């Protein structure tokens, strides 16, 4: 286990370097001069030159990249061009918001999607299966911003139950924090409920037709035991795969959701950084997202290892 973990971490390093290079080149290639953004359009050339020198933008691109990477390894990923704040401290404030949103959305997707998929698989080709299938396709087809607006219309305007948007850290006011989070989580989670349900159904249908399921029935196990112990354990690998893979895709959904509900998360921060040509901040943000995806992949691999003895030996 430890060996595999170390190997996987070493394998992640080139991925990080390559992603870093790509992000850096995009920032360089994008039109717009950061000095203009910082100083305003009518800034005198002398001032702009001073800023460029300060940011090190006068040096060759490769040197800039090497310098950025070198500092990044030490934990310093630069300053925001716009505010001058260290990127790390901006990120530190934003990451928990997105993390909470993503985690709760996935939790919602799993808690609702897995049982739905299992029921659909057990009762396959019945009306229950048809209902789950129609709901899944509908949920997948609805864009996040539209679901978000519908939810605001329902919970805020009609029922007057929830605040439309805003954010309070969980540590300050847990109840209010969760009230702010409900609609974003429903918005982002609904599509993943559908994905998880469909994947669970497919995996369970396949597993339930296996020979070892017949064996379990032949030795007298109850249907509940057959499905939950013998069936679900085997379907879990496929379900974990879809959760792991979708986590990366979830970042895209988080950008939209955070914008609709005005959550101060990573997604919105990266979007704003791009509009502001705040490349320092953008690079840091993208790097964190990539790191997050790598960590989730690592966790997925560890889950396989725990779930399937064939991988262990």
């Amino acid at each position: 286990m430890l060996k595999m973990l170390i190997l996987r971490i070493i394998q992640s390093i080139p991925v990080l370097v390559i992603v870093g290079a790509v992000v850096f080149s995009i920032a360089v290639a994008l039109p717009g001069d950061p000095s203009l953004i910082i100083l305003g359009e009518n800034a005198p050339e002398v001032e702009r030159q001073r800023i460029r020198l300060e940011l090190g933008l006068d040096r060759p691109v490769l040197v800039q990249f090497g310098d950025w990477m070198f500092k990044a390894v030490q934990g310093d990923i630069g300053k925001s061009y716009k505010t001058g704040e260290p990127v790390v401290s901006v990120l530190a404030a934003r990451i928990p918001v997105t993390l909470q949103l993503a985690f709760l959305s996935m939790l919602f997707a799993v808690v609702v999607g897995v049982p739905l998929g299992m029921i659909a698989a057990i009762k396959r080709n019945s009306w229950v299966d048809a209902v789950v299938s129609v709901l899944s396709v509908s949920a997948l087809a609805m864009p996040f911003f539209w679901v978000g607006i519908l939810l605001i219309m329902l919970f805020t305007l009609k029922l007057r139950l929830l605040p439309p948007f805003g954010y309070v850290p969980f540590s300050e006011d847990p109840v209010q924090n969760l009230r702010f989070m409900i609609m974003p989580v429903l918005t982002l989670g609904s599509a993943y409920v559908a994905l998880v349900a469909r994947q669970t159904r497919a995996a369970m249908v396949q597993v339930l037709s296996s020979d070892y399921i017949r064996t379990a029935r032949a030795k007298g196990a109850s249907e509940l035991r057959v499905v939950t112990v013998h069936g679900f354990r085997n379907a879990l690998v496929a379900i974990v795969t879809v959760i792991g893979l979708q986590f990366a895709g979830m970042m895209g959904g988080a950008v939209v959701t955070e914008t609709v509900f005005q959550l101060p998360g990573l997604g919105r921060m990266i979007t704003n950084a791009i509009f502001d040509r705040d490349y320092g901040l953008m690079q840091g943000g993208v790097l964190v997202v990539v790191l997050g995806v790598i960590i989730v992949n690592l966790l997925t691999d560890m889950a396989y290892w725990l779930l399937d003895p064939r991988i262990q030996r």
Partner: protein
Amino acid sequence: MTDTRPVLAELQDVSVSFTKGNVTAHVVDSINLSIKEGETVALIGESGSGKSVTSLAIMHLLPRAKIDGKIMWHGKEGARNLLALSTREMRSFRGGSIGMIFQEPMTSLNPLFKIGDQIAEAARLHRPVSRQEARQIAEDSLRLVGIPEPRGRLNTYPFEMSGGMRQRVMIAMSLVCRPALLIADEPTTALDVTIQAQILELLRRLQEELGMSMLFITHDFGVVAEIAERIAVMYAGQIVEQGATQQILENPVHPYTRALLNAIPRLDKRSARLASIEGVVPDPRALPPGCRFATRCQFAVPDLCTSQPPPLSELQDGHAVRCARWPEFARVEYA
């Protein structure tokens, strides 16, 4: 010599059909078969003859099927119709009084659980034993089927074992509760010839040691001769011939039985090519009105064979055949 052993299980007019939309497939049609205590009965036929479905029907392992008739079980508590039992009652039979092993040892064990746990589960499902006792039972069971170092083997996973070993594990698991009847659904078909012989020998030894009855399903007459006392030949969902193994092997009457026996490659008879039976088993959704074998039978005559389904007629004690022309064939020596 008359057999005085009491009957253990009895299939009375058992039919199995599957309906999808408005099409019904009659896969098993009015089977009558009895298995005595300590007896081994073989059910033999080609793929699609309904032999596996018959065995699964006994176990209630056909969720989408309609099963008619009666399956009488003469246990210690008197006679009961297995088809009339509740799900819960039937569960106590599955793996309890009736054990079952399957054709595919490679896929019949759950890949994610240690074999010790899988065998122990079978024990714990039927007997009020502790985890520790169940583990001991599992170990004893592995020893019974001839697996060396059974204690250490408890902790291995199926993927770490060969096909023959896995089939031994399946047998160990099915015998945990000392069933009165073991249903073996082509247990050797997927195995190498040398392993086949070992498994057959094992099953025969266990059957003798434990005094259980066995319903042995196969398509291989070579296997049948080794293990069965009585044979029922199935074709397209019906029993077309049944009798003592000797009767069937030495004096087969039904053209299908004869054709099956001819299809076994033999070293003592030189022939240019392997014998086969032309054609395929008829579609159970559209069965012919007369004899079901008529379409492939070289002795079929119009009207007699194609208009009326032939009844199962008894030639002599226990030897019965479903063929309209049987009196002619019975006189012709089979060679």
